[in-house]
C-alpha cells in the first residue's frame, strides 16, 4: 500500500482545475490554492507499538475579489458540484465584506525555479517499511532491559498548486520523512533524544538515530544540580534551531516600521543596516539550497528566491508583504518557511568546542519555548533530553535540566564558535531548518528543573 493513485494532483489536472475555476468565476479576480497530500505515520512508546495511520486529503482554497472586497472559501471535496459551491460561497462572502483598503491585484504570470524535492522512495514507503523502522528502535530497547523507547515517524508527499485569473500558474511536488526518538532509562533519571529529517527516505538511518538516543539516555543518568546563572553553552544543532528559527517569525518589515518589533529603531524606522549579532552570523532562506529544498513560491504565487536576512551580523533584509512593499517602495519578499544559519570563517566540531571549554554546559535540545518579551525576542524554555556539564575540556557529568530566559539575538551576539550546518528534525514550529552547532558565552539560565 504505497501512494494511492490520484492522491496527489498531477500538473495537468491542476492546470485543468485552475482553468475551470477561472472560467466559472463571476468575480473581478479569482485566486486558487490547491494542496493535495498523502501522509503516513507511526508512533511507538513505552517499548510498545502505539497508533499508526495513513491519510489522503486535499484542500482547495478559492479567493474571490470584487474591487477591494475579497473573501476565501475552502473545501476538500474536489467534485464538480463542490467546486461550483466553493466558488459561489467565496463570491457571496466577498460581496458582503467591507472594502479592504490594502487589497492588492492578482500577480500576473510568473516564472519559477524548479526544486527537486520529490523522491519516489519517500512517496512509496509501505506499512511494512515503517514497521521495520520502528523495530530498529524497539528491538534493541527491549533487549537492553534498562530503557524505554518512544518515537514517531511521519512521511508525506504533497503537490502544491497556485493559480489565478491573470495567468499565473505554479506547481510543486515534494516529499519528506521525519523521525524522532526519545529513549528514557527505566530508573527514571536519564533521557536522550535524536532525530533525522530528509526529503529522501533512504537517507534516514533509523538504527543509528535510535542508537544515538539510547547512548544519550544512558549518559544523562543521575544528573547533578548546578547553580543557575550565566554559562558558556554549547548548543547542538537542534537546540540552535529551537531558538534561532524564532528570529524568522519577527522579520516582518511592517511591524518594525510601525514601532512594534525587535527591529524597530528608537526614534522611528527600522534597524536594517545595523549590526545586531556577531559578524560571523549569516541567516538566510533559499528554496534551492540542497539542505532546505523548499517550495519556490508562496501562497500568492510570488516567486521565492535566496534571501539573506542577516548578513555577516548586520540586519540585511526584512520581510515585505506585497502591500507593504508597494507602500515602502521595496521589493516584496514573501514569507519563506525555511531558514538556515551559516557561518563565515573557520568552523569547529562539537568535540573541538568541548575541548576548548573550561567550564560550560552542553545542550541537546530546548523545549516549551514561549515569548516573554516581543521587544527583544526574549523567550523562556527549558533544556531537555541530554544536558551535560563541561569542565576542563571534557564532559564531566550529566546535569539537571534548567530554565532559561534569553533571546536568540543576545545569544548570537555572544558567539564564541560555530560548526557545520545540518538539517534538524525537531523544532516546535517544524519546517526546513538548517543549523550548525554553536558555542556562546553568558547564556542566562534562571532556575533548575527536576524534570527528566
Amino acid at each position, binding site marked *: 500500500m504505497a501512494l494511492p493513485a490520484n492522491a496527489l494532483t498531477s500538473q495537468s489536472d491542476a492546470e485543468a482545475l485552475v482553468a475551470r475555476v477561472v472560467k466559472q468565476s463571476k468575480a473581478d479576480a479569482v485566486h486558487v490554492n490547491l494542496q493535495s497530500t498523502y501522509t503516513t505515520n507511526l508512533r511507538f512508546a513505552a517499548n510498545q507499538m502505539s497508533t499508526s495511520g495513513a491519510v489522503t486529503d486535499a484542500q482547495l482554497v478559492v479567493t474571490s475579489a470584487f474591487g477591494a472586497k475579497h473573501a476565501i472559501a475552502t473545501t*476538500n471535496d474536489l467534485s464538480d458540484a463542490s467546486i461550483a459551491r466553493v466558488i459561489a460561497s467565496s463570491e457571496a462572502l466577498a460581496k458582503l465584506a*467591507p472594502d479592504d483598503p490594502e487589497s492588492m491585484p492578482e500577480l500576473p504570470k510568473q516564472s519559477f525555479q524548479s526544486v527537486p524535492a520529490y523522491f519516489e522512495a519517500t512517496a512509496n514507503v509501505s*506499512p511494512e517499511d515503517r*514497521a521495520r523502522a520502528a523495530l530498529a528502535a524497539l528491538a534493541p530497547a527491549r533487549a537492553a532491559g534498562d530503557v524505554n523507547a518512544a518515537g514517531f515517524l511521519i512521511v508525506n508527499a504533497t503537490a502544491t498548486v497556485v493559480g489565478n485569473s491573470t495567468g499565473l500558474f505554479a506547481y510543486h511536488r515534494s516529499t519528506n520523512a521525519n523521525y524522532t526518538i526519545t529513549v*528514557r532509562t527505566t530508573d527514571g533519571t536519564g533521557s536522550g533524544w535524536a532525530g533525522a529529517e530528509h526529503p529522501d527516505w533512504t537517507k534516514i538511518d533509523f538504527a543509528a538515530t535510535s542508537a544515538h538516543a539510547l547512548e544519550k539516555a544512558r549518559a544523562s543518568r543521575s544528573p547533578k544540580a548546578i547553580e543557575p546563572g550565566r554559562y558558556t553553552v554549547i548548543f547542538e544543532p537542534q537546540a540552535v534551531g529551537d531558538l534561532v528559527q524564532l528570529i524568522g517569525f519577527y522579520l516582518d518589515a511592517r511591524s518594525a516600521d510601525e514601532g512594534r518589533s525587535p527591529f524597530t529603531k528608537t526614534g522611528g524606522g527600522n534597524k536594517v543596516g545595523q549590526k545586531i549579532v556577531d559578524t560571523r552570523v549569516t541567516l538566510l532562506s533559499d528554496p534551492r539550497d540542497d539542505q532546505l529544498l523548499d517550495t519556490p513560491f508562496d501562497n500568492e504565487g510570488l516567486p521565492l528566491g535566496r534571501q539573506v536576512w542577516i548578513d555577516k551580523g548586520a540586519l540585511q533584509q526584512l520581510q515585505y508583504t506585497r502591500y507593504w512593499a508597494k507602500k515602502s517602495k521595496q521589493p516584496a519578499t514573501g514569507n519563506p518557511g525555511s531558514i538556515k544559519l551559516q557561518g563565515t570563517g573557520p568552523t569547529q566540531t562539537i568535540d573541538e568546542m568541548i575541548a576548548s571549554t573550561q567550564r560550560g554546559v552542553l545542550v541537546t535540545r530546548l*523545549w516549551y519555548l514561549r515569548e516573554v518579551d516581543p521587544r527583544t525576542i526574549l523567550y523562556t524554555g527549558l533544556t531537555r533530553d541530554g544536558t551535560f556539564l563541561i569542565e576542563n575540556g571534557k564532559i564531566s557529568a550529566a546535569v539537571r535540566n534548567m530554565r532559561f530566559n534569553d533571546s536568540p539575538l543576545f545569544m548570537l551576539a555572544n558567539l564564541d564558535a560555530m560548526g557545520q550546518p545540518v538539517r534538524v528534525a525537531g523544532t516546535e514550529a517544524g519546517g526546513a531548518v538548517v543549523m550548525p552547532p554553536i558555542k556562546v558565552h553568558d547564556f542566562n539560565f534562571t532556575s533548575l*528543573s527536576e524534570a527528566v
Partner: protein
Amino acid sequence: MDAGVKALLMDALNAAKMAGAGYADARIGHYRNNFVITREKQIIQVVDTDTMGCGVRVLVDGTWGFAATRSLTPDGVASAAKDAVAIAKANRIARDRAVELAPTPSVGEVSWTSGYTTDPFTIPIEQKADLLIKANTEALKVASVKFVNSSMFFVKEDKNYANTDGAVINQLMVRSWLPMQITAISADNSDFQIRTNTIQPMGRGYEYLLEQDPIGNAGKWGEEAAQKLKAKPVEVGRYDLVLHPSHLWLTLHESVAHPTELDRANGYEANYAGTSFVSPPEKMLGKFKYGPEFMNVQGDRSQSGGCATTGYDDEGVQPETFLVIKNGVVNDYQTTREQAMWLKWWYDSQGRPTRSHGNSYADNWNDVQFQRMPNVSLLPGEKDLVWEDLIAATDSGIAIIGDGSFSIDQQRYNAQFGGQLFYEIKGGKIVGMLKDVAYQMRTPDFWNSMDMIGGKRGYMLGGSFFDGKGQPGQVNAVSHGVVPARFRQINVINTGRKA
C-alpha cells in the same frame, strides 16, 4: 443521523471486519470554521473553511491501525478500512503487548447538540465585521493605542460515529471566540505594550460574544494597554500572588490538567509533549498530596459552555464527572478505553468499575482519536469569597489578571507564567500597576502554598481553542472552571531585559 452517512459508516465497519479487525470504529465528520479578521478600522480577510471525510480505526490482534480518506463513497470508506487493517497487520511484527479495551455499555443510536442560542454561521459577515471595527475604534480612542488586531473565530462540527460494539452517534457542536490584541506605543518608539486575551473562547454561539460587550469594553482594554507603558518595573523577589480566574485557568491547565493525563504518566507522550511527575500511578493514587485539603479538581465534559463539553466521546463513551484531585490528594487520571485498563487495580481497590472517563478525542476526521483533556476545573471553596475579598485580605503582594506567556517542563515540575495586568497590593488595596512580571514555580510547592480560595460567586470558565498534544500534532478545545485564589511567597522575576 443522516441515513446516507450511517450507511457509509456501516460500509466502513463491515469492510474492517471482513479484512480481519476484531474491533473497529468509524467517524464521518463535517468540520466548518468561519473567520473574520480585522485591524484598526479595516477588514483583512474573511474565510470560510469546510472539510469532510471518514476516519477508520481498527484493532487487529491487539494492534492499532488507522486510515482516513476524503472520498465519501462506499468504495472510498471501505478502502480506508482495508488500509487501516493492513497497517495494523504490518505493525504486528513490532507488537509486544496486545491492546485491551475497557468494557463500555453500548449507547445505541443517539444524538446530542451543544448548548448555543444563535448559530454564528447564520450571522451575516458585514454584521460581524461591523462589530469588530466598532470595538477597534473604541480602543483606538486612547492616545497611545496605535494598533488593534481583532477577529472572530467560529467552529461548527457535525460528527457522526459508529463502532462494532453497536454505538451510532450524531453530535452537533458550536464554539465561538473573539481574540483582540491592542498595542500601545510610547511616543519615541522605545517601548510597546500589548493587552490581549480579553475574551475567553467558549462552547457557545454568537450570543456569547455579544454578552461580552466588546464595543463597551474595548476602551477600557485600550486604557490598560496605555497604562502598561507607564507601569513600574517589578523588583525581583518572593511575593504573595492573588490570581484572577482569567489567569489561573492556564496555570491549572499546565500544572494540574496535563500531568494527570494517563498516557503522559505512563510514557506514551515521551517523545513530544513529555511525561509527568504524577507517576507511576501506583505511587500517586490516594497518596500524593498535590495541594491543601480544600483543593478539589474535577474532570467533566458536561459543564454548560465548556469547550470540551460533549454528549459522547470519540470512541462512543458517555463521559463521566470525576475528581482528579480529592481533598488535595491525587484521586484519578484522565482516561480512554485503552487506558482505563491500566488502572484496573486501583478501581478494583476502590470498589469502582473499570471504565473510561470518556476522554477520547480526535481533532478532525483525518486524525486518530486519543486521550485529550476534558474540562478540568478547580472547584469553589466553601466560604463565599470573591476577588476583592482576597485582595483585601492580602497585606503585600501582586494581583495578576489575564493569561500571558507560559512555559513548563516536560514532566510539569518547573513552570513560568506571565500575565496581562499586574497590580501591586499594599495593606489590602491595589496601589499601582507593575510590568515585566513573571513567576517561576515548582508545581507541588505552588499548589501547596495556596491558602485562600474563592467561592461559587467567583467561578468562571477560561480556556483555549488550541491545546496541542500528540504526533502528528492535534489541537483540542478545552475549558477550565476556576475561582480566584491566593498563593504564598512565590518567586517573581523581572523579564524586561535590554541586552
